[in-house]
């Protein structure tokens, strides 16, 4: 469902507004942007982890179930480090659990690609390959961030992302260069999900602010590397690269598809039903 990106942030009747705290005088310039930026990384990993977790008990093969579960676990761990940092930056006493389980969908900052449904195995693999390739290139550069905390998280996450991208790229090749059915399903998934990739590289004022402070790597650089890696995989898979999308959605600005609400209803149910409960 297309949202009007030009009205990002403008009040809309009947839509609950994102409840971000106004920066106070003691905060450094760029703090609000940094919080937004960290939440984007955290939420993308968190929502993608949740999606992969949905395969447990349903994967086509035991080895693939373990693989998807392990990738999900890595992503969840990255999300936890990032959410903890976000809570500290926000300074309102919210920890990783409060941020994960008590925010509403308009407060989430994941890219829309991460919340798209699993679909069939090909669809999951395509979504994973697109995002794994993005994360490898992002973390490789983010480990040199001027923000030491982000640099450390990225260095740790990068080692894991290399395994993820090898898995998803390998499967994309097998599916594309597989049977007639696997090829058709992989191509259909690529055509369906490709429009969501534009958001990954569409820099807004948060991205530009973080880039100028040396906190975030330049999206244009990441895009070039992402294109190189992915084009090689798509060619090897004998798939057809879809046409470039002409519009972008902005999950990273809190504009989400209808899928996120349902995902959060499952993910947040226990904490909302039993507030304050813990293991």
């Amino acid at each position, binding site marked *: 469902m297309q949202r009007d990106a030009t009205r990002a942030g403008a009040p809309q009747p009947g839509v609950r507004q994102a409840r971000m705290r106004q920066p106070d005088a003691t905060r450094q310039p760029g703090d609000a942007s940094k919080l937004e930026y960290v939440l984007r990384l955290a939420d993308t990993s968190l929502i993608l982890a949740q999606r992969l977790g949905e395969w447990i008990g349903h994967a086509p093969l035991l080895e693939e179930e*373990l693989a998807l579960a392990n990738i999900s676990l890595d992503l969840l761990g990255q999300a936890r480090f990032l959410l903890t940092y976000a809570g500290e930056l926000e300074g309102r006493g919210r920890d990783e659990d409060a941020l994960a389980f008590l925010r509403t969908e308009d407060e989430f900052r994941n890219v829309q690609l991460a919340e798209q449904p699993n679909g069939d195995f090909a669809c999951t693999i395509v979504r994973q390959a697109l995002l794994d390739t993005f994360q490898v290139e992002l973390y490789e550069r983010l480990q040199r961030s001027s923000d030491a905390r982000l*640099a450390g998280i990225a*260095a740790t996450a990068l080692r894991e992302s290399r395994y993820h991208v090898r898995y998803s790229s390998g499967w994309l090749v*097998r599916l594309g260069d597989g049977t007639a059915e696997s090829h058709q399903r992989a191509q259909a998934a690529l055509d369906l999900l490709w429009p969501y990739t534009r958001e990954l590289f569409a820099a807004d004022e948060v991205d530009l602010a973080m880039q100028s402070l040396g906190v975030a790597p330049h999206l244009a650089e990441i895009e070039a590397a992402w294109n190189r890696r992915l084009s090689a995989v798509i060619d090897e898979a004998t798939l057809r690269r879809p046409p470039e999308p002409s519009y972008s959605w902005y999950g990273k600005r809190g504009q989400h598809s209808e899928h996120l609400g349902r995902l959060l209803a499952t993910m947040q149910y226990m904490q909302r039903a039993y507030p304050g409960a813990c293991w």
Partner: protein
Amino acid sequence: MNADAPSAGPSVQPPAGRRAVLAARVWQVLETVMDPELPMLSVVDLGMIRRVEAEGDGSIRIGVSPTYSGCPALRVIPGAIRAALQAKGFAQVEFYHVLDPPWTSDWITERGRALLHECGIAPPERVAGTHRTNERIAWTGNGRSAATREEGARGRSESAGGVACPRCGSTRTERLSEFGSTPCKAQFRCLACLEPFEHFKCI
């Protein structure tokens, strides 16, 4: 006084002083705290403990490196460490994460590697200073030879680095999956004795 993680070489004797003595005692206790999933390895064998800081009042701060971002043991291990230290009279123990430099399987001690092998898990090869990073057996997109297609279809590959079977020692082994029962392990099968085994991944 602080005590850093012992390096791969001989352990460094901490200088005299109450805090150094306390830190050394903490290291001794840490040698007895075992990983919950790999109970043959202590947290010291795993190279997870990066720093021990002891204050004059006996309070302790421990810097821990997570092996994998989502490793569930990372949440369990501090509790086990705290219990072990409290049993030895250390009332106040705090932990913090050390993410830079990130943990690498190179930090597993020689003793740890030998114990893994004894328990039927192929230990990781060395990563640093070689090209044998976890990219070495990467998918390279090297054309559609019959072997590649066959390998791709089966989702398996002959072990490029010659991972030795911990049971019979043969290097004719096959990787079944890069993911296993825990985030840190991959699944292999020996083509000589036909037994499956797990490999602690190089990272």
